[in-house]
């Protein structure tokens, strides 16, 4: 596929890196020559040092034939105009990163429909929802829901002494429809694979299962993923992400304390927020953390604009005894370091943005995607289009899914079916599947009507 990425910042570079690994043809546009050079040193991409919203530049970059144009510069307006222009030129799909909430639409106005942009991404919203998910599912590595919440994918770490340790996949998840739970991947170290029935689960492995949302408790018990979501959360920093996170948590009856240094910002936040306690103070100070009893909280989330400050205040909170710490890192290369020094989760809004854009790649049948293990594998939700290769065929004999992929669940007329050999796929079925990144496109093609 041909893909144009506008903006060679961290999100843009991440998108370009993942997609070029998957074998797509990438053109990267940015006005900053140095950034482009840094990117092209490491990536096999074409670069253009020009203004990405200009029609001439977009035409030169091949936006007219492109399968996807993603605008992720630091400017909302440039992104919006670039995406609209690319669409007019003939790009199949467009995405724009937009920070300012004023451009997110609302009420009757969906900017997406008016402007013809397929995806308007708000990094703050993505980060806020991601963090809320982490707070609610403390032990899971990744959780994603599909088919309007009917199907859940859950990646869990196998804990010491839990019922699942040392047992075969066959025994844990006996085949057949009644079990309802399907293990789609097993990661050990940095390898990820689809487990066979005789594979044994060891302590420290990561198991990904796909199941109907009602049956999550069974799977969680097997690997000790029993911890409830935090009832009290302290948020350090009062930016847009913090505000949205507080709003999400408020709606889930979580007791939220938000510490912000700027008094005026505190006042603005206290007007918008309901039950959240807005505290004026410096969240990195031990005195402030002690006074606000951070040590007793279930989770501490550091969301200030400075990575170093986020890290230090989280370590401080950990020292005081907080159960879980989540840090937002703006510099992508910090993320692994942060987790190494004892912070539970590092969230990078730029990576999240990139991953969201990546969901647009992979053919028209694919609707939403969860990215696993730094993009090595994905869980995708697809609709079987009538006339596509899989419709009417039976699993096992009729359909040959690419090696490195497995179908996890079918949703037909609101009913969730865990597929087994012999089941037939009908048109308009929703299919949730696991696939290594290298075969996602091939898998998507099976479900897409070639005439489209």
């Amino acid at each position: 596929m041909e893909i144009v990425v506008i903006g060679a910042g961290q999100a843009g570079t991440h998108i370009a890196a993942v997609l070029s690994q998957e074998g797509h043809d990438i053109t990267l546009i940015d006005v900053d020559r140095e950034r482009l050079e840094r990117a092209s040193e490491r990536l096999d991409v074409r670069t253009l040092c020009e203004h990405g919203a200009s029609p001439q530049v977009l035409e030169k970059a091949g936006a007219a034939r492109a399968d996807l144009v993603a605008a992720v510069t630091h400017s909302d307006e440039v992104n919006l105009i670039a995406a609209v222009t690319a669409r007019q030129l003939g790009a199949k799909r467009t995405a724009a990163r937009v920070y300012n909430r004023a451009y997110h639409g609302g009420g009757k106005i969906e900017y997406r429909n008016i402007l013809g942009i397929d995806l308007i991404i708000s990094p703050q919203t993505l980060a806020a929802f991601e963090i809320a998910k982490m707070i609610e599912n403390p032990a899971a590595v990744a959780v994603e829901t599909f088919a309007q919440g009917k199907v859940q994918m859950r990646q869990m770490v196998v804990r010491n002494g839990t019922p699942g340790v040392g047992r075969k996949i066959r025994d844990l998840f006996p085949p057949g429809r009644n079990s309802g739970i399907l293990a789609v991947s097993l990661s050990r170290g940095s390898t990820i694979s689809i487990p066979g029935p005789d594979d044994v689960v060891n302590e420290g492995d990561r198991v990904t299962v796909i199941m109907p949302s009602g049956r999550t408790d069974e799977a969680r018990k097997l690997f000790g993923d029993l911890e409830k979501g935090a009832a009290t959360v302290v948020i350090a920093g009062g930016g847009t992400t913090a505000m949205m996170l507080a709003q999400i948590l408020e709606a889930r009856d979580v007791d939220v304390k938000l510490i912000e240094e700027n008094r005026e910002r505190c006042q603005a936040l206290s007007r918008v927020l309901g039950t959240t306690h807005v505290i004026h103070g410096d969240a990195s100070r031990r005195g402030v953390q002690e006074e606000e009893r951070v040590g007793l909280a279930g989770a501490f989330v550091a969301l200030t604009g400075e990575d170093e400050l986020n890290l230090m205040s989280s370590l401080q909170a950990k020292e005081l005894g907080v159960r879980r710490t989540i840090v937002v890192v703006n510099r992508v290369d910090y993320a692994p370091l942060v987790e190494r020094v004892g912070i539970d989760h590092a969230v990078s809004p730029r990576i999240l943005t990139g991953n969201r854009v990546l969901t647009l790649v992979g053919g028209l049948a694919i609707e939403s995607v969860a990215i696993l293990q730094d993009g090595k594998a994905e869980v995708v939700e697809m609709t079987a289009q009538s006339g596509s290769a899989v419709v009417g065929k039976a699993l096992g004999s009729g359909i040959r899914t690419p090696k490195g992929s497995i179908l996890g669940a079918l949703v037909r007329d609101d009913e969730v079916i865990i597929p087994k050999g012999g089941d037939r796929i009908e048109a308009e079925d929703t299919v949730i599947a696991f696939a290594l990144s290298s075969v996602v496109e091939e898998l998507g093609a099976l479900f897409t009507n070639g005439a489209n």
Partner: protein
Amino acid sequence: MNLRTVIRLIGVLLGFIGLSMSFPLFWSLYLDGPDAGALGTSMAVCIGFGGVLFAVGWGSSAPVLRRESLAIVGGGWLLAAFFGALPFYLSGAIPSFIDAYFESMSGFTTTGSTILLDIEAMPRGLLFWRSFTHWLGGMGIVVLFVAVLPYLRAGGKQLFQSEVPGPAQDTLKPRIQETASFLWKVYVGLSAVLTALLYLQGMSFYDALCHTFGTMATGGFSTQNASVGAYDSWTIDLTLIVFMILAATNFGLYFHVIRGRLNSLLRDPEWRFFVGLVGLCILLVSANLYHRNYDSVWGSLRYGSFQVVSIVTTTGFGTADFDVWPAFSVLILVSLMFVGGCAGSTGGGMKAIRFLILLKNAAHGVERVFRPHIVRTMKLGGEPVEDDLRDAIVVYFSLLMLLFLFSSLAMAAMGLDLLTAVTSVATTLNNIGPGLNAVGPIRNFAGIPDAGKLLLSICMLLGRLELFAVLVLFMPSFWQGR
């Protein structure tokens, strides 16, 4: 300050008062009463004097700004009560002019305190005028003329805000004139319904009309010596309870109700607080009265609820003598005097919303002791309350308490006993009507010294115009310069 504009508009205001005397004059002529001459003369004097003021101010085209509007409202009300007293005085029905002024002020400010010993002996025309002043003052004479006069424009907004009770209101419609006329239409509509209901329950048309004026304006003047108690009908009691509450509700809410959003009433935080408080107090008082004053639950509820609603809405009708009730009930009633109705209603008192904000402010103040760094925005129904508004309410409350204290001191200095001194001020400052002891529900204000009557008249005006429009008139700097 542009005095000529002020004088011209006060002239118009007096013209309105004079014209409105034609209603009692009609009653008087119809019944061939002895007061027709006095009413006719007063009407002529009032319109004539208004005309003179209008002529003096003629040609002034200066706009009505904040100072002008305060002067018009404050000065206009003082004069309105003066001319409103003329019929009582000229007819000889109330021989002392100070008494007549007290009665007239009590009418316009919808207080309902009276100096009359035998109400039923008054000529019908005068009695009608007495109740009619309630009705004019309830929704506001200035609001009425903002509704009617087309040429006030932005000045009308200032005038409107100076007279409508409660913290600044959202204007319902883009033009203040339309807002004012909407409020008056609702007022007239509700009044018509109530008159019909009372008439159907056996009141004469005259009594039904006068009691409607007393109820819709939350005034409290009755045509009977025994007030509403004279009818001894539980259906009339119930009808009046409902309409007193309707009159003490923010009239702005009816705008939404009429547009089909009935739940905007139930969702309004002030209204919910108000109705909840009334419900709670009815239960407490009725429980307190049961077995002590009334043998049946039904009787305790009937008289308890009527008195509670009558006091909290600042109407002041009576069906029972609460002066002989147990101290717990009496104290609840006295406390409710200060709460009053909702903002934007015809009720007096401090207004439920101010009380609610003061309570919240106090709660936040206590919290700040143990959480010094918390930043909290006060909210009502999810909407933030601006700091300016909160501060203004704290100032309002402190002023009200100071005025209450000093006026009570002055009344005591005139030789009144403690209960009478304190409750006469509380009841007039909050526009209710009856107090306790010498000014209790079955007694009246005739025995108060003249100086006391004047002071209480000023208290009534302070209460009706919510302090500021009256207090500024006594500030030299208000009159000086620009």
